[in-house]
């Protein structure tokens, strides 16, 4: 029976597998329990009890044959040569070949080590259980924080059931929202109404028996009588409502509770422009097309949207305005609540010239003809001609004029080059463009000096003429050139010798010439020059122009900034004569006297008193303060008319109190409503009351002064 050994080994594997399955089932149901523990101990128990049988039925761990284990071993371990099932057979009845194979495989089976895959389900279950344990703890704390009793109290009072008069069997209220909402007619069977602004309401009341009169009383004390149908049990009436408030039903002279009538106002549309920026400058040479993108939203629907654009041209007193309306491409037939608007404007087609400005805003109209306008956005085409004027140079402080001329010269040359482009060969064009780039670079280097940047002093020096393009790697050649062009006059000139060997970087003296604002602008100018140079070197003078213009404009600004102007002033005051001061005749002067009687009227004062009156009514002192309550009720009903949802229950309670049919709960409700109207009273000065017995002090003081004893 050597096979029984292998049999127990295979059986052991089977049992091990089953055990692991069972444990993983237990762990998974524990995971369910942990998750359930968010809802308390019973949730945890329920989770466990439900999950365990479900898992056991699903996994069914004990339904596993030894044959399956053998197959599993065959598939996992190739050294068993698909012959594990032979080990399970009876060895006596097996043929010789089989027995030999059994012996071979048995040896292999001894060395088999179960792979980690075998333990995977258990590990996975352990992971799930620990994750859900953490989730359970976290969830428990979260639930604890949010599960406040206040919230429950609030919701329960919010969905309070309304009371209706006993004679009324049924009510149907048909709400016809106004056309602008695009909503269809709906009906409800409760008296509290929440409807769109300007809705038409239609009440249909069914009574148990025929009644003689039925009407609705609104908070502005208007009455709406209902008309009976033939048998006087169905009464109807309609009204267009334009103000929030509340109403009552009067049946044969008997009044019902107050019902709220809350209107939802229509909000004006909202427009948001995402492009362009509020102030856009289009440099000369840039594309004169502007893409306007905006979004418009409304709570019901948008009926129209358009751009109003105004072009201002000319300068000084000769400014002309031209206004035009531009439509968006999209049609607003659908009256959708939100639209994405976009429109491209070609400024040149609109007739804009350099120096003109375009002001535009977007107006959006909703279905109720409420219009909203966006802010005004400005697009400017700067006038480049002005930059070329020499006004600033001729008079006033001369701020290194040759530099401005250079930048202007580069622009003029570039434009000239563009004009002649057709008549030039490509090589010639490229060379000239490159030359312009070189000029631009020289200009930039000159300005760079003011910022303390690395400078080249040998510009214009014939020795360095060829190499200023490759500035970065040419310094070490100087040494060689020094020897070839040795001037006898320079003999003993230490500076000249040093020049050849040193690499001059930042010069500290240059860096302190200007204040930081000017330096910053200079830096911006240099950046534009860099960009311009880049385009010129790429043989694209057209693209270089905008940068060149911007650099020129910045330089012009710099020039203006550095001017200062002090106006001449001359003022002479007459000397004072001190002896004449305050000696005038004042007999006939009667100074001002102001007299006023102010009556301070504080509406909330009566509400404050009503609070304590209600407090005393709690103790059955119901005799006093009835008129105070009447006045407070008036204030409360004004509040309820504007915000019925907040104040109507309190008003209702106060009404019951005044009719002396009330409970303590009504008083609390009324006090809460009144309390809501009030804010903390302002702090006013007040003489504090004397403590009784202080007459003694006064007597003491009197006797202290006179000096005798009583």
């Amino acid at each position, binding site marked *: 029976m050597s096979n029984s050994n292998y049999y127990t080994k295979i059986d052991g594997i089977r049992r091990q597998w089953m055990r692991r399955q*069972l*444990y993983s089932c*237990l762990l998974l149901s*524990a995971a369910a*329990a*942990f998750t359930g*523990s968010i809802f308390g*101990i019973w949730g*945890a128990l329920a989770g*466990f009890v439900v999950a365990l049988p479900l898992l056991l039925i699903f996994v069914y761990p004990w339904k596993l044959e030894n044959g399956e284990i053998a197959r599993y071993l065959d598939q996992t371990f190739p050294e068993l040569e698909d012959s594990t099932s032979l080990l399970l057979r009876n060895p006596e009845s097996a043929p010789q070949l089989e027995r030999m194979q059994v012996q071979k495989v048995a040896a292999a089976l001894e060395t088999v080590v179960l792979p980690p895959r075998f333990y995977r389900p258990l590990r996975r279950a352990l992971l799930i259980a620990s994750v859900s*344990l953490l989730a*359970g*703890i976290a969830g*428990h704390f979260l639930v604890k924080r949010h599960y406040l*009793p206040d919230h429950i109290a609030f919701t329960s009072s919010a969905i309070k059931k309304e009371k209706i008069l006993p004679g009324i069997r049924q009510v149907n209220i048909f709400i016809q929202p106004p056309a602008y909402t695009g909503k269809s007619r709906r009906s409800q069977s409760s008296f509290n109404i929440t409807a769109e602004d300007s809705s038409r309401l239609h009440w249909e009341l069914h009574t148990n028996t025929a009644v003689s009169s039925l009407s609705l009383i609104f908070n502005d004390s208007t009455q709406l009588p209902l008309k009976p149908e033939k048998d006087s049990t169905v009464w109807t009436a309609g009204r267009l409502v334009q103000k929030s408030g509340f109403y009552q039903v009067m049946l044969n002279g008997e009044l019902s509770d107050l019902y709220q009538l809350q209107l939802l106002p229509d909000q004006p549309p909202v427009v948001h422009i995402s492009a362009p920026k509020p102030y856009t400058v289009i440099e000369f040479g840039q594309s004169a097309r502007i893409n306007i993108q905006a979004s418009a939203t409304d709570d019901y629907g948008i009926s129209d949207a358009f751009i109003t654009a105004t072009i201002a041209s000319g300068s000084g007193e000769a400014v002309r305005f031209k206004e035009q309306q531009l439509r968006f491409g999209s049609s607003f037939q659908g009256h959708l609540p939100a639209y994405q608007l976009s429109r491209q404007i070609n400024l040149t087609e609109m007739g804009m010239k350099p120096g003109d400005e375009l002001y535009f805003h977007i107006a959006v109209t909703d279905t109720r003809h409420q219009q909203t306008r966006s802010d005004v956005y400005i697009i400017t085409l700067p006038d480049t001609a002005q930059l070329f004027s020499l006004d600033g140079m001729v008079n006033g402080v001369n701020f290194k004029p040759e530099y401005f001329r250079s930048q202007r010269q580069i622009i003029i040359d570039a434009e000239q080059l563009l004009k002649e482009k057709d008549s030039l060969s490509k090589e010639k064009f490229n060379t000239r463009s490159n030359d312009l780039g070189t000029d631009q670079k020289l200009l930039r280097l000159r300005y760079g000096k003011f910022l303390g940047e690395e400078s080249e002093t040998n510009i214009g020096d014939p020795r360095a003429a060829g190499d200023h393009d490759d500035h970065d790697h040419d310094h070490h050649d100087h040494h060689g050139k020094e020897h070839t062009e040795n001037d006898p006059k320079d003999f003993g000139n230490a500076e000249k010798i040093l020049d050849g060997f040193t690499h001059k970087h930042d010069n500290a003296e240059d860096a302190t010439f200007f204040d930081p604002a000017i330096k910053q602008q200079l830096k911006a100018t240099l950046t534009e020059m860099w960009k311009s140079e880049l385009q010129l070197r790429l043989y694209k003078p057209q693209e270089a122009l905008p940068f060149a213009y911007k650099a020129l404009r910045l330089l012009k600004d710099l020039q203006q900034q550095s001017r200062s102007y002090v106006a001449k002033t001359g003022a002479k005051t007459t000397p004072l004569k001190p002896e004449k001061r*305050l000696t005038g005749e*004042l007999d006939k*002067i009667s*100074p*001002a*006297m*102001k*007299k*006023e*009687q*102010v009556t*301070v009227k504080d509406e909330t*004062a009566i509400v*404050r*008193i009503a*609070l*304590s*009156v209600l*407090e*005393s009514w709690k*103790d059955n002192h119901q005799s006093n303060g009835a008129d105070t309550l009447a006045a407070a009720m008036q204030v409360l009903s004004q509040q309820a008319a504007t915000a019925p949802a907040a104040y109507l229950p309190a008003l209702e309670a106060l009404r019951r109190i005044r009719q002396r049919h009330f409970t303590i709960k009504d008083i*609390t409700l009324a*006090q*809460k409503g*009144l*309390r809501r109207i009030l804010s*903390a*009273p*302002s*702090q*006013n*000065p*007040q*003489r*504090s*009351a*004397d*403590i*009784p*017995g*202080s*007459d*003694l002090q*006064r007597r003491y*003081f009197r006797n202290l002064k006179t000096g005798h004893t009583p």
Partner: protein
Amino acid sequence: MTIWTSIIWLVCLLLLIVLLVAEARRTRKRWLAARLLATTVTLVCLAMLISPVFLPQKKSSAISSLTTVKPFVRKGIIACNWPLQLPAGREWRIQGTYHNDLQQPVTLRISGFDTDMDSVVVPGGQQLPFTLKTVPVHQGRALYRIVALRGTDTLEQQPLPVEVQPLTPMAILFLSSSPDFDNRFLADWLVQQGDAVAMRTLVSRDKYATRFSGMEQQPLEKLTPAVLEKFDVVIANASAVPAEVRRYAAEAGLGLIIKNDTVSAHIQPQTLFLHGYRLPQLQTDPAAPLPVAADALPLLKDSLGRIYSTVTLSGQGKIVHTKVSNTYSWQLEGRQEAYQRYWSTMLEMAAGRKKADGFTLSILPRIDEETEVLLETSGQPEVRAGSSVLYMQQHPFLPSVWMGRYWPQRAGWQQLLASRVSRWIYVFGKDDWKNLSSLPDKAFAVPAGELTGTANAPLSPWWYIVPLLLSLAFLWWEQKI
């Protein structure tokens, strides 16, 4: 049951199931039932060891002359005080001490008219003083409540009666040697609040611009005692106060607020503190001179302790000196609250007290307990409380003080009526404020006989350590044989 204990029990339950299955699977079936029992006992005891079990126990203690009497430990709100009357718009402070003998924190909360006003948390196992404050919005009598809560359980609830009194307008006289913004703003504000204002501003030699708001026209050229008598407080700059006004103020108890005359040269923004209340920044000169007498009480300071306003006694009256003269900028900034607080405090500090007859009562009048009533009035008073008459006895040395005793028979608000004065008092019920340490101990004396009650007491640990050891020993021994 907390989440922690439920986790422990759940883990033990799982372990128990696993162990029971392992025991049942063992090939040797000897002692099976005993082994299962022992395993169960082990795990139950283990769980109990980790999270101890509390059992309600009936406690009884017989009081006899032989047992030593333990001192009675008061818990809950053991001290509390609050103003029973206060003028409208004033902050109402409730101060006291809470002794929390529980492990959990306790929340103290005051509420009135179904609205919570203020709350404070007292940590577990501590005795701490507390201060709660609110501005009552009502006018008249009302009952607020102070509630001690543990989580959502109410531990204690006590009534806090308060009577908010309506304001009586003040009459204020402004004297100024030049037109002043600050005076103008202050006068406008006071008039809006219903106070009476008169103002005399020097505009030229012996010429005064005057203003009368909310009061009759007075001859202000000569400030005679007959004119000054009509005012509670005089606000003036130093050069505009005639000597006779100062003299009258000292004799008759008139309040004076005197502002600095000097124009400050080095003004800078300063944060000021009024009795510890932080006011918004104001442009002032800390170096400006301020007459500080030896007995002056500082009112307004900055963070460095430099003094800006003081109050001094001057005879019967009080003088407030201040070097702040641009408080109107608070109003322009919209800092109304700071402005109101500043001027209310200044005017109250300066103004004398109102003369009034009045009742004084022992604190916490209780139903069916003796209450002492003190009345200050001239002439023989006749005092009534509801339907009963109180017979007053004159004080042997102070002829205007009358004393009486009163046993209230009904809890709640009651009125004490004398010939010229009345006062509402609140009579507390038998169970209100029982823990106050200011009350005599007799209210808490343990009645003779037996004291019984239930309390949660932890089970002695031996109840589970011994079975645990026994069952473990059995399981070990069972393996050995």
